[in-house]
C-alpha cells in the first residue's frame, strides 16, 4: 500500500508543480490511523499530510461538482467504484469534465474503522494488514482477524474495475474475491412479508435523520433537496411519525433508482449502520431482472432503463411481480 501512496503523492506533486492542475483531491491523515479525511491539496507543501491506505474508503467523486467549477483543472484520485459515480455525474451534467483530470488508483479493499474499533474495545493503537489477515493492537489486547471480516460493507462484495481515468496507478493487480453482491437481497426476498417488514422496521427505527446518506450520495446531487424545501409541503428534518421514519429511505431509494452505481457510501456513512445499500441493490436487482443487465455509471452517455421506453419493456403487472 505504501508503494501506491508514494506513487500517488509523487504524481500529485508533479501535477501541482508543473501547473497542470490547480488542485488535487485526495485524502489527508487524521488523528488516528483510521480516520483519514477527504482533502483538497493546492500546494506541494500541503501534500505533507497526503495519505492513501486502507482507511480511504470515502468516494471523492461528488466533491467534483463544486471543485470542477473552480478556475483551473482539478485532479482527483478515484478508486474503481468511485469511477462509476464519476461517470454517472458526467452523464447527469453535474461535473465539468473538461476541468477534471482523473487518476484511477488501485483499491485493495478498504477496512471498516468502526468494526476494527469494536474489536479493539474502542482503543486502537495499531492496524497492520498482511495478506488476508489483519492484526489489531489495543491496550486491551491484540487480535488477528480475517481481512474479509473487517472490510467496509461496500468492499466486501465489490468486483468493480475502473471505467474512467486519464491515467492509472496500479501496483499489486489486487484480485478481488468473487462474491455475489445480491446475496443479502436474496435473503431478504426469501423472508415472509412480515419478517421483512420487521427487519426494516427494526433497522429504520434507528434512523436519526442526520441526512448523511443523502448528502454523501453522488446520485443525490439536487441543488435543493425536496425534503429541504419549505415550499414542497413535505419538507422535514425529523421523523415526526412512524410513517416518515419508514418511508424516507424508501423514497430516497426510488429517487436514485436507475442512477445508483452501488458505491455503498450510504451504508458507510450511516451513524446507525443501517444497511441502506440493500434498498438500492434491490432496485438494481429488479432492474436487471426486468429490463436486462444494467450498471449505472458504466457509460457517460446512452439510454437508461428507467428513462427510456421500448416496446419490449415489461408490463407494469410484470414489474410488480418482478422482485419475487
Amino acid at each position, binding site marked *: 500500500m505504501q508503494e501506491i501512496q508514494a506513487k500517488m503523492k509523487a504524481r500529485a506533486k508533479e501535477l501541482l508543480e508543473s501547473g497542470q492542475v490547480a488542485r488535487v483531491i485526495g485524502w489527508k491523515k487524521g488523528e488516528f490511523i483510521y*480516520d483519514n479525511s477527504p482533502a483538497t491539496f493546492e500546494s506541494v507543501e500541503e501534500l505533507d499530510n497526503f495519505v492513501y491506505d486502507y482507511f480511504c474508503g470515502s468516494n471523492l467523486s461528488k466533491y467534483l461538482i463544486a471543485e470542477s467549477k473552480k478556475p483551473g483543472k482539478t485532479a482527483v484520485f478515484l478508486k474503481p467504484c468511485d469511477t462509476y459515480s464519476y461517470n454517472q455525474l458526467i452523464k447527469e451534467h453535474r461535473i465539468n469534465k473538461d476541468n477534471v483530470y482523473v487518476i484511477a488508483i488501485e483499491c485493495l479493499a478498504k477496512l471498516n474503522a468502526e468494526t476494527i474499533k469494536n474489536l479493539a474495545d474502542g*482503543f486502537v493503537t495499531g492496524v497492520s494488514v498482511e495478506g488476508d489477515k489483519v492484526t489489531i493492537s489495543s491496550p486491551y489486547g491484540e487480535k488477528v482477524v480475517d481481512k474479509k471480516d473487517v472490510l467496509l460493507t461496500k468492499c466486501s462484495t465489490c468486483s468493480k474495475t475502473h471505467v474512467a481515468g486519464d491515467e492509472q496507478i496500479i501496483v499489486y493487480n489486487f484480485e478481488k474475491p468473487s462474491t455475489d453482491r445480491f446475496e443479502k437481497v436474496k435473503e431478504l426476498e426469501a423472508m415472509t412479508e412480515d419478517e421483512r417488514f420487521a427487519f426494516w422496521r427494526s433497522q429504520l427505527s434507528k434512523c436519526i435523520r442526520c441526512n448523511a446518506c443523502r448528502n454523501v450520495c453522488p446520485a443525490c446531487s439536487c441543488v435543493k433537496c425536496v425534503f429541504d424545501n419549505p415550499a414542497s409541503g413535505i419538507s422535514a428534518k425529523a421523523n415526526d411519525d412512524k410513517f416518515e421514519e419508514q418511508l424516507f429511505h424508501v423514497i430516497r431509494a426510488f429517487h436514485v433508482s436507475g442512477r445508483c452505481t452501488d458505491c455503498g457510501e450510504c451504508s458507510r456513512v450511516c451513524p446507525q449502520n443501517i444497511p441502506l445499500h440493500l434498498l438500492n441493490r434491490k432496485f438494481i436487482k429488479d432492474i436487471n431482472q426486468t429490463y436486462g443487465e444494467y450498471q449505472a455509471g458504466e457509460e457517460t452517455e446512452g439510454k437508461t432503463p428507467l428513462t427510456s421506453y421500448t416496446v419490449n419493456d415489461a408490463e407494469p403487472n410484470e414489474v410488480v411481480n418482478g422482485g419475487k
Partner: protein
Amino acid sequence: MLKIAKSKLNDLYAKINESMGLFIPVKVAGEVDYRVWSEGKEVSLETLKTVKSPKSMFFPQTENLMKFVKEGKNIEIIDVREDFDQRKPFVLFGVKACDYKAIEVLDKVFLADPVDTYYQDRREKTTIITTACSKPEDTCFCSVFGIDATNPLGDVTTYLDNDYLYWQANTEKGENLTNLVKDLFENGGEEKVAEIKENAKKVLDCLPFKNLDLSKFKPENLNELFNSDKWQELSEACLACGTCTFVCPTCQCFDIRDFKTNKGVVRFRCWDSCMYSDFTQMSHGNNRTTQTQRFRQRFMHKLCYYPSQNGGLYSCVGCGRCVNKCPQNLNIVKVIKALGDK
C-alpha cells in the same frame, strides 16, 4: 456500597419498571441507544458511546408541543401534556460521566429564564443513575473538560466489573430508589470499586487526546478565532449532514414546525442542526450562506460563544461521538488542535 450480580440485573430492571419508566442503553439491530426498557430487551450498560446520547430523555428528537383545532374562524389551543402530572417518574440508567456533565450544559439553556417547561417536567421526574467508565476508548477526552470518567455523579453511581454491578446512592432521589430495590442487593464492593477506578485511570493516563489545550478558547479571543483562516481547510470535506449534531450530547438547537393531521394541526419541535443550509434561511436572505460559515458556527458555539454566556463552561464534554461518527472524519478535536495553537 451495595452490589448485585450481573446475572440478576434483569430483576433489577423489572423491579424499577414496576413503578417507573426505565430509559437505558439497549441494543437494536446491532447498535446501542437509550430506549425505553421492556422485558426481553438486550441492555448494554458497558457501551460508552451510545449512538445518541441520553439527552433524548429530556429533549426528545421530536416532541409534540401543542395542538390547534380550528372551528370556523376560532382557534383552540390544546396543551398536549395534560397527562404530565399522571406520567410515571423515570429512571435514566447507565449515564457516563461525560453525558452527565452534558446534562448540566443543557440545563443552562433549557432551565434558564424563561424555563422550558417541557424539558423541566421530564428533568424533575427523572432519577439519574450514572455508570463509571471502566474501559475508556481512544476517542475519549472528557478529562480535558475536568470530568472524571471513573467518578460520575448523579442520583446513584454504579460501577461494573465482570461479575457485579456496584451501587452507591448520592442524593435523596437516589436513596428513595435504593430503598425500592435494595432487597435485590447485598452489601460490599468498596475494594472492588477502588480497583475498577485504578484500572480505568491507567488507561485514562495514556489517552491520545488527554493533553488537548483549550487555553486559547476564551471570550476575549472570539473575533480572532472567528476570523481565523483555518476554517476553510477544516471544513472542506464537510458533507453538511447533521451527524455530529445529532450524536452530540450538548447540541440543543431545535426547529418548531406544524404538522397537519385530520384532527387539527400539531405543533412539534425536533432537533435541528446549524450545519444545515436552511437553518438560518429567511425569506429575504441567509446570514450563513457557505458550509464553512455553518461549520464555524457549530464549533465556535461550543468552544467560545457558549462559554462566554455561561461562565466559561464549554459546550463540549469530550465524549468523542463526533470523532467516531463523522462520515468524513472531521471533528472538534481537529478544530481544537488547529485553532488552539498559540
